[in-house]
């Protein structure tokens, strides 16, 4: 099991070393740690995309072997996120006001569902899978696109400063099903660019709230650790950009 995980991680490092997929990975900076203290986050996304696993990882817990399809919105106690930096430092970030909710469209369209979860949040994490990306479910009429359309309608009800980041989960499965990583990197780069364009188009005029998409694996701890640092930094950087833009306006 471990050798396979290591190989997957090495392939992931290779993928992220290429410029087009690599921009989805970078190191965390100190300022980001201070900014993240006590931020409220919301985790939404389709069924079985990995929302529960993401919460488990954030809480430094192992992904439960048996877990359940979330049946109702449930509050999650405030918890500290331990981020392992590249320099062997570990930083604590407190997450407050997390609500765990199901991924079915029933929850999305329920006013006490996704909207209630996102309303007070500083950062909204939208979790999808590499399969959603590969099967272009972000195109019109498909599930990811419907969720993006929903996000646009929800934006006026969110905090002015709310940021959205997309996590593309299960990259480990994609790596394990490929041997030609250069070709895979090429495919991913094209798909990621298409997703980026779609998100920006759909979220207009709120596209500045979108902080990018990051390839991640909730299952593979090494990939998760490396990717989450990117996420935290990307969101922090985007916050500064949007703040500058708002001030300029």
């Amino acid at each position, binding site marked *: 099991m471990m050798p396979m995980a290591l190989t997957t991680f090495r392939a992931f490092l290779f993928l992220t070393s290429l410029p087009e997929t690599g921009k989805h990975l970078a190191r965390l900076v100190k300022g980001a740690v201070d900014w993240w203290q006590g931020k409220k986050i919301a985790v939404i996304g*389709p069924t079985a995309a990995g929302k529960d696993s993401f919460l488990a990882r954030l809480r430094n817990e192992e992904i439960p072997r048996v*877990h359940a399809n979330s049946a109702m919105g*449930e*509050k999650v106690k405030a918890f500290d996120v331990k981020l392992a930096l590249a320099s062997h430092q570990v930083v604590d970030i407190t997450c407050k006001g997390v609500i*765990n909710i199901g991924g079915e469209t*029933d*929850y999305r369209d329920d006013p006490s569902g996704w909207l*209630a979860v996102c309303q007070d949040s500083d950062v909204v994490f939208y979790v999808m899978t590499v399969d959603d990306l590969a099967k272009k479910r972000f195109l019109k009429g498909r599930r990811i696109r419907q969720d993006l359309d929903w996000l646009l309608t929800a934006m006026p009800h969110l905090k002015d400063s709310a940021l959205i980041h997309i996590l593309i989960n299960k990259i480990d499965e994609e790596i394990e099903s490929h041997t030609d990583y250069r070709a895979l990197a090429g495919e991913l780069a094209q798909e990621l660019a298409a997703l980026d364009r779609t998100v920006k188009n759909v979220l207009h005029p709120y596209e500045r709230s979108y902080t990018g998409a990051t390839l991640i694996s909730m299952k593979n701890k090494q990939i998760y650790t490396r990717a989450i640092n990117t996420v935290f930094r990307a969101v922090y950087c985007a916050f500064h950009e949007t703040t500058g833009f708002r001030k300029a306006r």
Partner: protein
Amino acid sequence: MIAMRAYWILPNREQRDDLLASDGVTVLPLKQILDPARRPKGFSHGVPSETLEKCDSKAWKEILFAQRFPHDEGGKELFCVSCPAGADTTGRLVHLGLLFLLDRNERPRFDIPYANLSKEDQSYATALLERLRSPSDPWARSVRELSDLPAVSGPTSNIAVHRSVVRFSSLYEAGLHGLARRSTIWKTPLGTVLVLILAGTVMAISIRACERSLRAEGPIGVIVWRFN
């Protein structure tokens, strides 16, 4: 005249984007029966994770979770019972639910057809209906107790849920050793207690100040309230 409407909320075994329901004859999206925009806050289509975490995984098959919501604008009361019903394609636990839309003073009847359900779902449906009619099953008893309550004024459940986004009044507490009846003593929220203490203190100070004023200013017939 039969007013009660009952539906199965089917387990999401294929990890579909929407939940499906069945009236025993046809399968249709749950949102066609219960518009998500009109769903009461805290509505659950299955057993909450909180309850699963509290119970031993070997005892999950015994869990029955029921909710009752007061009449909506259309005059319908909502009653829902759910239980674990196996796993989905990736091994996650899924739920089977029974949803009732009831008129005033109406009680749910646990005799719903299930012939059009899949074989796997049929076995869980049969077991659920049998349990709900069983006098010896403590979980089923808690569900019937909930349905027999006089009209409820807010969300009510058979088992306490502390992590829900709305507050539920509950009959029982679930734990490793099964169900324990909750105390019926009215639990005052901390905020209310503090306000009462504060009000009592202000009143005591006022009375004391008044007494002093009466003693000091009494002879000229004027009552002066002094607040220190």
